[in-house]
C-alpha cells in the first residue's frame, strides 16, 4: 500500500521520530501534534498497515485499562528520516530563491 504524505502524516512521523527509542501513547501524540483522535488514529492504522509502526499494549497499574503504545519500526525510521531530509532540501531551495 502506498502511504500518502499528508502534512498530518508527516507531523505524526516526526513526533514518533523525535521520541525514539521511547514508546508513545495515543493521547500524548494527539496533544503534542494537535491532531484530534479522528485524524490521528486513521494515520496510525495506515502506518501500521505499511509496517512503519510497531504497536503494543502496556499493562497499567491501579486497575486502569491497558494502554496502546506506538513506536517507529526500522523501516518507519528510515521513511521518517527520508521525509526530514526532503523537508530540509525544500527549505534550502526556498531560502535560495528568497521565498
Amino acid at each position, binding site marked *: 500500500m502506498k502511504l500518502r504524505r499528508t502534512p498530518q502524516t508527516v507531523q505524526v512521523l516526526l513526533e514518533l521520530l523525535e521520541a525514539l527509542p521511547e514508546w508513545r501513547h495515543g493521547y500524548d501524540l494527539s496533544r503534542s501534534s494537535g491532531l484530534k483522535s479522528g485524524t490521528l488514529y486513521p494515520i496510525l492504522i495506515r502506518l501500521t498497515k505499511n509496517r512503519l509502526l510497531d*504497536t503494543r499494549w502496556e499493562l497499567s497499574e491501579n486497575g486502569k485499562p491497558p494502554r*496502546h503504545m506506538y513506536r517507529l519500526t526500522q523501516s518507519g525510521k528510515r521513511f521518517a528520516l527520508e521525509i526530514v531530509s526532503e523537508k530540509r532540501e525544500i527549505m534550502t531551495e526556498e531560502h535560495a530563491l528568497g521565498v
Partner: protein
Amino acid sequence: MSLVRTAANRIASLVVRYASAGSKEWAQAIESELSCIENDWKALAWSLGGFRVLYAIQPKPLGSIDELYGEAQKYANRRLHAVNNGWLGTNIYLFAPVVCCLIAILRIAMGQDIPGSVVQLTGWLLLTPTLYLGSREPDVPDSDDQANLMKFYVDELSAKSRNSLPFWMFIAGVLLLICGWELEVSRGWGAGLPLPLMLLMCIPLFFLMLLLLGSFVATHVNNRRRFAQIERLLGDRSTD
C-alpha cells in the same frame, strides 16, 4: 461520574462494539486512553473522534494458512446454514422486489407515471438477480477438504468483487430505484399531493436505500481487503 464522562465512555464502548474485526484493537486503544484524559469535555471529543475508526473497515488479520482455513470453514458454515433454512426461509425477502416489479408493470400497463415506473422496474430487474445470487444454494465442499474449501472461499469473494457483473448490477439497480422514486415524487408534487405526505413516503425509502448501499459498500470493502490478505498470504507461501 459526570453525565459528559458517562456519555464519552458509552460512545467509546459503542465504537468498540461496532468496529470491524481488524479495527477493534484501535477502537479499544481509543477507549483505553479515556482514563488518562482528565477533562470530561475533552474525553467526549476524544471518544467522538473514535467514530472515524468505524470507517476503517478491515477484516481480522490472517497470519497463516490455518487461519485462512478456519475463516473458509466459518464462511462455508454460514452458507450451509442459509441452505438449511430451506428455499422459502432463504429466499423470502426476494418476494418484496418481485411484488414491486409486478406493481411497476401494472402501473405501466395502466399508464400511471410511466417514466418513474419504467426506471423503477429497470432498477428492480437489475437488483433482484443480484439478491438471488447472494442467497442461492452454494456447492460447499466437505469441511475436511481443506484445498477445495479455501478455493470455494476465494471464488465466493472474487464473485463479489468490483470486477464482477453482479457488483455493478447492484449499484446501478439501487441508483435507478432512487431516480425512479424521485421521478414519482416530482409527479406526485405536480399532482398536488400534500408535501408532508410526500415526505412521509419518500424519506424512509431514501434512507433505507442509502443504508442498503452503505452496508453493501462496507461488505465490499471488507471482502476486497480479505481478498488482498489471502493473495498476500498465498504469495508469501509460494515464495517460501
